[in-house]
């Protein structure tokens, strides 16, 4: 008899993501992913000036601010067929790179490492052994015995206080936790160090964007940064050097700490390459354009169907017809009206709420489909598309990671194994190391272009009186993001954001096909239904974010997530 587990945020306002799984003989036999908040934020934009839409969409989500802003200006620019000056492309790219680095570092260390790292085993670790192990992996200066002793003391102090604070409700001592005390200590010490490095990436974004978390420097047609290498009030040489210095500090952390840690943990939990593949159709957009017409990109995009890497199809730009014509959204199992799959330019957002119904409607997320199929988006999709299509940068970083994982695991882990729960973590770290390298390149492109005498940063948009439509695409930290706008007489007529978590957290469609979260949970082991650590590992591997929503503090609130076993 199957047992149903609901993992549901309790509070009404805070409720975002809910996952239900049925467990039979220690393994997941059925699953549902739902979003418990209405996402109708796009309706606010109707009738507004397309030039200010990015300010509003930047507030969809407080964590993904810049990504919505960039997708929005790209959407309007696409509708106007507006070219973007090279300086503006490079400045935007540097913002996206630093934002991505920040996101990936935080995601691994602060949002998901503790799914694999058992904090309460740390007091019994031998810091000297941890140091020896770490130094065998890399030359990182933060791997001394002293550093690990200090980190261990922090955990001992928390444990001795009798109040676990941040660690109160972890799944410590769970049978699926398998690292040695020394490796747990290694990962925890880097968890602390990561706080400093993620902040450096935030600082770089703030310098380029005039502010963070809400950048101020975007404009439809480019950026509003004035460039004058000698003026104090503009983007000058001092500021450019500050940005470079910050990136030069973050890159070694990614290369010598983040990527090796992920590879080591992946090698030690190599069985997690066998779970969580789920939907093996992948979709990624090209990004980091290097020319003003958006025809050349440093991150390739495209799609892969049924896990067949050899059949990869590359997109040649942001508005590839195969992409724009392939996307539809369905609402059979989502709390919206309408039966027909609609292209986002024709998209409707009319709520029709029922209760949570296993066979009926159960989510506020629509079901986006590409050529009628559910698609997985995120760093894994981007890395697989790049790898399969022979992108040299993707190949270099991926092969390096796979070699290290294979060494730790003691057997070969090939690129096909990345289609898994662990593979999503590895792909994110690979993407971070690619971004760190591309950061140097785009900084140099910007400086060289300015040195050549070009200080242009934007082109002025002019709106026709008729109707135009645009799509703004961005390969965000969580995957492909697209903003679809219809502009009529200089006003927004329709606006739909198809966000990465909509693809991944999608409910079933009319054909009953599961979305990626749901599909990836099937056949996951569950050792203890009251503590479904394994299900949480798989959900976290996607870097879920439903937070395009509300933020209210509930001082009397209890646990954020409640696990109910029915």
């Amino acid at each position, binding site marked *: 008899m199957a047992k149903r587990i609901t*993992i549901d*945020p309790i*509070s*009404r306002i*805070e409720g*975002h*993501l809910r996952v239900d799984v049925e467990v039979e003989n220690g393994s997941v036999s059925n699953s549902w992913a739902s979003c418990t908040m209405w996402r109708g*934020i796009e*309706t*606010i934009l109707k009738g*507004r*000036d397309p030039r200010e839409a990015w*300010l509003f969409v930047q*507030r969809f*989500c*407080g*964590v993904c601010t810049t990504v919505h802003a960039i997708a929005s200006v790209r959407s309007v620019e696409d509708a106007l067929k507006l070219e973007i000056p090279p300086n503006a492309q490079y400045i935007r790219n540097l913002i996206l790179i630093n934002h991505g680095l*920040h996101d990936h570092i*935080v*995601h691994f260390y*602060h*949002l998901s490492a503790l799914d694999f790292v058992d904090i309460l085993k740390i007091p019994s670790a031998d810091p000297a052994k941890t140091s020896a192990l770490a130094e065998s992996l890399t030359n990182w200066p933060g791997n001394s015995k002293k550093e690990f002793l200090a980190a261990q003391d922090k955990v001992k102090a*928390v444990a001795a206080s009798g109040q676990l*604070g*941040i660690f109160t*409700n*972890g*799944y410590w001592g769970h049978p699926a936790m398998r690292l040695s005390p020394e490796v747990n200590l290694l990962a925890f010490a880097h968890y*602390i160090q990561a*706080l*400093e490095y*993620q*902040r450096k990436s935030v600082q770089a974004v703030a310098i380029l964007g005039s502010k963070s*978390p*809400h950048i101020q420097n975007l404009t439809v047609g480019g950026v509003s940064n004035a460039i004058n290498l000698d003026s104090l009030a503009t983007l000058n040489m001092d500021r450019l050097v500050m940005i470079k210095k910050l990136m030069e500090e973050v890159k070694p952390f990614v290369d010598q700490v983040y990527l090796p840690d992920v590879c080591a943990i992946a090698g030690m939990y190599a069985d997690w390459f066998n779970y969580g593949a789920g939907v093996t159709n992948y979709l990624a957009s090209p990004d980091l354009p290097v020319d003003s017409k958006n025809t050349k990109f440093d991150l390739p995009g495209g799609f892969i169907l049924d896990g067949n890497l050899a059949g990869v199809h590359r997109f040649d730009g942001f508005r590839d017809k195969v992409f724009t014509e392939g996307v539809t959204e369905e609402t059979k199992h989502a709390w919206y009206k309408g039966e027909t799959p609609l292209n986002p330019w024709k998209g409707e957002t009319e709520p029709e709420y029922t209760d949570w119904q296993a066979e009926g409607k159960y989510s506020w997320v629509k079901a986006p489909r590409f050529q009628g199929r559910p698609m997985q988006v995120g760093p894994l999709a981007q890395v697989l598309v790049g790898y399969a299509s022979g992108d040299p940068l993707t190949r270099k970083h991926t092969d390096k990671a796979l070699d290290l994982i294979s060494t730790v695991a003691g057997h070969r882990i090939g690129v096909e194994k990345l289609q898994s729960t662990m593979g999503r973590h590895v792909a994110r770290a690979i993407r971070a190391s690619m971004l760190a390298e591309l950061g140097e390149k785009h900084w140099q492109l910007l400086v060289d272009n300015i040195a050549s005498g070009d200080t242009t940063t934007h082109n002025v948009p002019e*709106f026709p*009186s008729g109707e135009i439509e645009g799509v703004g695409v961005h390969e965000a930290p969580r995957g492909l993001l697209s903003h679809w706008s219809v502009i009529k*007489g*200089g*006003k927004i007529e329709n606006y739909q954001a198809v966000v990465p978590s909509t693809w991944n957290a999608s409910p079933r469609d009319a054909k009953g096909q599961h979305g990626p979260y749901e599909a990836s949970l099937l056949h996951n082991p569950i050792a203890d239904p009251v503590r479904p650590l394994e299900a*949480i590992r798989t*959900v*976290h591997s996607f*870097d*879920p*974010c*439903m*937070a395009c929503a*509300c*933020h*209210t*503090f*509930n*001082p*009397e*609130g*209890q*646990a*954020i*997530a409640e696990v109910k076993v029915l």
Partner: protein
Amino acid sequence: MKKIKICGVGSVLLGDDAVGPYTARWIAANYEFGEGVEVEDLGTPGLDLIAYMTGIDVLILIDSVENGAPAGTVTVYDKAEITRQRPAVRLDPHSPCITESIFIAELAGGGPEEVYLIGVTGEQMEVGAPLSDVVRQAVPLTVEKALERVALHGGSFRKRDVPAASEIWWEAAPVGAIA
């Protein structure tokens, strides 16, 4: 001298959840501060709040709260009261993270000594709605409570002779791009 930061948090797109950003912007437009005091609208930073509390001695958060009091009630919580709420296993890593951010910053050794939450009980969180009247009327008291904490920790401020524009852009009526 102590570093003091007033942060408005909340979503400006969701009715009374905008009270934090609204109040922070109102304070910035109407007051000038001495060295070491900053005011910021942080939106909904989730766990990214940690990045903004590092190096700060006194953090004063302004946010909407759900505490069962009548809408428009202003309640001040101190650090002990905020951290009484224990974080738990979370599915969606970007939900509100005030408590967790404080814990993690403390663990790293860079957290603020004092944290206050000036909470305003909301009436509605409707998409695209402006602040409810009752919440808007609570703004002056919210400002007063925040400034009291600034003064308590030695921060200085004075009311501007001429207020700057407070840039509550999200409440402006829609206007198209063609005049």
